[in-house]
């Protein structure tokens, strides 16, 4: 009954969504305010409707209605209520309802808040958001219905298809069939019961869905021909929120992988991870390049393309994780929703790009670029690098599918491919992060460079590169292959050039970074790659700190405020800039962690009898005892107690454990972790023998510096919140835009 109600409401919501698309288009075309208003009201009805349906689904989940196949698949009697509620997005069908629910909520927020101000855009925003909502609701209605029942035939047996899979449907598949009631459910996949995994998908979805709003405004701008940067200003905060949630989703997902998957790392370049990273990459590029459009009225076409790409990648990300296309092409072909997704992405992408091409001439830049090394050019370079990372990721994810389609051969594209390709790109991004904030001031000095100076500089730099290449043996040994050696030398070359261009501004940070790198060389590592990485990190940190310091000092002098107050007020003056700088600092802290785990991780595995120990890089891990007991969620817990020593110092006990979930026949390995700023000791219980002298098998990782990743992530959060914090004068229009607007008005009046 409740299930029928939930399904009925979803069907109505689907129809309403389609109606709002139709009414909005018709209203706009006939200039009928009534039709547009009707479309708006229909759109506003979506959220309450989907909420009702979702409430029915949650009710079914918490009251153990296992006759509903979705409830059967993701819950079981022993699960606590909060887990049953979060199981809503734990399975495919439910998560599609969740997606549409968020989409409807955001679209309603947009149309409720600023209906009068953005009247010309909003009908088209309704069209785009409602099409997206309708697509997801359509998937629920026709392909992935979370309310479908199990059925039994006249003999009382479960009705199944030829392969033995139970048939699920809303209505009796054959005459005389009755609803089948299993006594207990299958239960949520134990891996998904971790707190990180409970919050991670909503965060990711929030990020995905909020990116639809700037896209919708972009399309509205293209259709209406209002191609100035108004759409960007309206959606600036949405974009930042989308970015915030997507970033949080990525970090939480990484933390979850680190704590639950038990393989010693947090990022395995799994296609599912990359699916979430790809919209983040274009989103980050977009966030940077819209600043140029707002400030200088350039890159309009490019920004449109970026937001279109982001939208497509958001849908593509959902598609990758929801259709089974990743495990094999056959799974894709069998999956009912795969082709539908494919068609939707294709149509929306081609449609949007066609619209963009149609408006291409209107989107020309208002001003010219000043120099090849101006701030704008560096932002474009930043965009190129982000898009390059995207190309690597996209191709890496798609290639196995293409290979299987054309040759029938299944291949794996794993971490080595991505690491090799992405590491130099990220290094280049770091270099940019170091010099770009200074480019506005650096410009003038560069202009003065004449040919002779160029020749001297480039000559000296080539000499340095040649000198460096004399160490090719060391480089080859450490980097592994020739391509990387060449890329590395090229990176050094470009770095020296860049630092020279901005020498009058970065000489202090450069000397500082060189000194820090020297210390690291003396006391920590001799790895060439690591030293280069640490140099870049130190450079960016010092440049950014110098920027903060200079601005604070200037403000303190000018306003007579004390230093701390001046620093605080600095953020108030230009939140986006200083929030952004804070994000840069946080990125560098995260980079320390990433560098640490990628270059210095060590591991060992061994089987030890009770009271014996394993050693790894200064740590000694002694196996003290093991115990078995029942966990709170019906799992069988095997928990080892190990004591950790560094030399003779006792540091404490750790409890690596294996949780066995009998109903899913699934093991979950929870590591024992000891985190410090220097490194993480990460112990996994691999295997154990009861009452035997063989003892237990442990795998131990020492993950240097990885904690900095999480510290950076927290700072990152603050940075985005500062950048996105509403201004008191929220609708403040930048001077340039005001100027443009004035001229526009003048023209209009002249025409009148």
């Amino acid at each position, binding site marked *: 009954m409740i299930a029928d109600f939930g399904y009925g409401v979803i069907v109505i919501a689907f129809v309403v969504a389609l109606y709002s698309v139709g009414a909005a288009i018709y209203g706009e075309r006939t200039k009928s305010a009534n039709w547009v208003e009707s479309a708006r009201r229909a759109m506003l009805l979506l959220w309450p409707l989907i909420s009702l349906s979702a409430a029915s689904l949650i009710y079914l989940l918490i009251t153990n209605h296992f006759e509903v196949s979705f409830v059967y698949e993701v819950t079981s009697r022993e699960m606590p209520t909060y887990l049953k509620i979060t199981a809503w997005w734990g399975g495919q069908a439910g998560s599609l309802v969740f997606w549409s629910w968020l989409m409807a909520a955001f679209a309603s927020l947009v149309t409720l808040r600023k209906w009068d101000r953005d009247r010309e855009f909003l009908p088209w925003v309704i069209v785009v958001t409602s099409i997206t909502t309708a697509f997801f609701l359509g998937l629920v209605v026709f392909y992935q219905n979370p309310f479908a029942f199990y059925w039994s035939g006249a003999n009382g047996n479960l009705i199944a298809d030829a392969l033995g899979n139970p048939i699920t449907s809303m209505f009796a598949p054959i005459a005389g069939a009755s609803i089948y009631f299993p006594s207990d459910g299958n239960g949520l996949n134990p891996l998904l019961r971790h707190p990180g995994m409970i919050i991670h998908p909503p965060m990711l979805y929030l990020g995905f869905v909020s990116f639809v709003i700037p896209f919708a405004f972009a399309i509205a701008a293209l259709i209406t021909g209002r191609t100035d940067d108004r759409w960007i200003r309206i959606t600036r905060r949405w974009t930042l929120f989308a970015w915030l949630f997507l970033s949080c989703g990525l970090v939480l997902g990484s933390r979850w992988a680190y704590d639950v998957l038990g393989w010693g790392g947090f990022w395995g370049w799994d296609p599912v991870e990359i699916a979430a990273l790809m919209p983040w990459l274009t989103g980050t590029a977009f966030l940077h390049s819209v600043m140029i459009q707002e400030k200088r009225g350039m890159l309009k076409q490019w920004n449109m393309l970026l937001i279109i790409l982001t939208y497509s990648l958001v849908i593509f990300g959902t598609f990758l994780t929801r259709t089974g296309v990743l495990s094999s092409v056959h799974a894709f072909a069998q999956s009912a929703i795969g082709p539908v997704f494919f068609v939707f992405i294709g149509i929306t992408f081609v449609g949007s790009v066609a619209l963009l091409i149609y408006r291409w001439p209107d989107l020309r830049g208002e001003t010219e670029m000043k120099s090849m090394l101006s701030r704008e050019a560096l932002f474009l370079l930043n965009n190129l690098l982000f898009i*390059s990372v995207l190309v690597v990721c996209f191709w890496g994810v798609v290639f196995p599918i293409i290979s299987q389609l054309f040759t029938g051969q*299944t*291949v794996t*594209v794993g*971490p080595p491919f991505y690491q090799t390709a992405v590491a130099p790109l990220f290094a280049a991004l770091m270099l940019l992060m170091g010099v770009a904030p200074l480019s506005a001031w650096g410009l003038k000095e560069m202009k003065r460079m004449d040919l002779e100076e160029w020749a001297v500089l480039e000559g000296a730099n080539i000499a340095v590169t040649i000198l460096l290449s004399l160490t090719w043996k060391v480089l080859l040994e450490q980097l592994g292959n020739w391509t990387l050696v060449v890329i590395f030398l090229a990176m050094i070359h470009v770095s020296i050039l860049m630092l020279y261009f901005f020498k009058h501004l970065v000489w202090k940070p450069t000397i500082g970074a060189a000194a820090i790198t020297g210390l690291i060389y003396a006391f920590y590592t001799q790895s060439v790659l690591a030293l280069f990485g640490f140099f870049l990190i130190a450079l960016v940190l010092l440049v950014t700190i110098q920027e903060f310091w200079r601005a604070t000092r*200037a403000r303190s002098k000018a306003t007579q405020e004390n230093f701390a107050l001046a620093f605080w007020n600095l953020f108030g003056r230009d939140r986006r800039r200083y929030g952004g700088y804070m994000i840069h600092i946080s990125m560098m802290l995260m980079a320390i962690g990433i560098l640490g785990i990628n270059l210095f991780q060590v591991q060992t*595995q061994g089987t030890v009898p009770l009271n014996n120990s394993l050693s790894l890089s200064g740590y000694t891990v002694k196996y003290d005892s093991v115990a078995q007991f029942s966990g709170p969620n019906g799992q069988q817990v095997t928990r080892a107690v190990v004591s950790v020593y560094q030399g003779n110092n006792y540091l404490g006990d750790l409890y690596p454990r294996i949780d066995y979930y009998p109903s899913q026949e699934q093991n979950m390995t929870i590591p024992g972790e000891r985190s410090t700023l220097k490194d993480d000791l990460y112990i996994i219980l691999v295997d154990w023998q009861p009452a035997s002298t063989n003892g237990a098998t442990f795998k131990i990782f020492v993950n240097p510096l990885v904690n900095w990743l999480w510290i950076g992530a927290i700072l990152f959060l603050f940075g985005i919140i500062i950048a996105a914090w509403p201004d008191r004068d929220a609708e403040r229009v930048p001077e340039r835009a005001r100027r443009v607007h004035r001229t526009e008005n003048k023209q209009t009046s002249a025409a009148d």
Partner: protein
Amino acid sequence: MIMKIIFRISILTFIIAAFFTSIALAQQPVPTPSDDQVNHIAHQLYCPVCANTPLDVCPTDACRQWRDLIRQQLAQGWTEQQIKQYFVQQYGARVLAEPPETGINWLIYILPPAIILAGAFILFRALRMWTKPVSASTASGSNEDALKDEYVARLEEELKNRK
């Protein structure tokens, strides 16, 4: 008849040779491979049945058996290359962390750098195009204007700070 004798002798020689070789091989001490040695190789291989899981961390029983197989092969003196080769022959290229550099697989290594270079080229051309009009109209006036503009902007900024 002679042929038969020759055949028998050759078989005998072969058996004796095999016997001594096996003794010689057995005498070479091959220590029991450690978990770390096994994991070192397993880490470079992917589970042939599960999606995207490296063999050293895969918790399934099948993978445990595959790891034991690697241990046996190591004990028999197989090299890393031979073991990898064996897995590729048995389960196909998907067990490797990167596609082998043959046939269509070249695309995975060539296309991204090609696209990136093309992107860099387009960007370079676009920048040239955008900056040219400024330098073409290098009337010193426009340059001065730019400088003046910048100067005014900075002045305004500083004045704002003083408030």
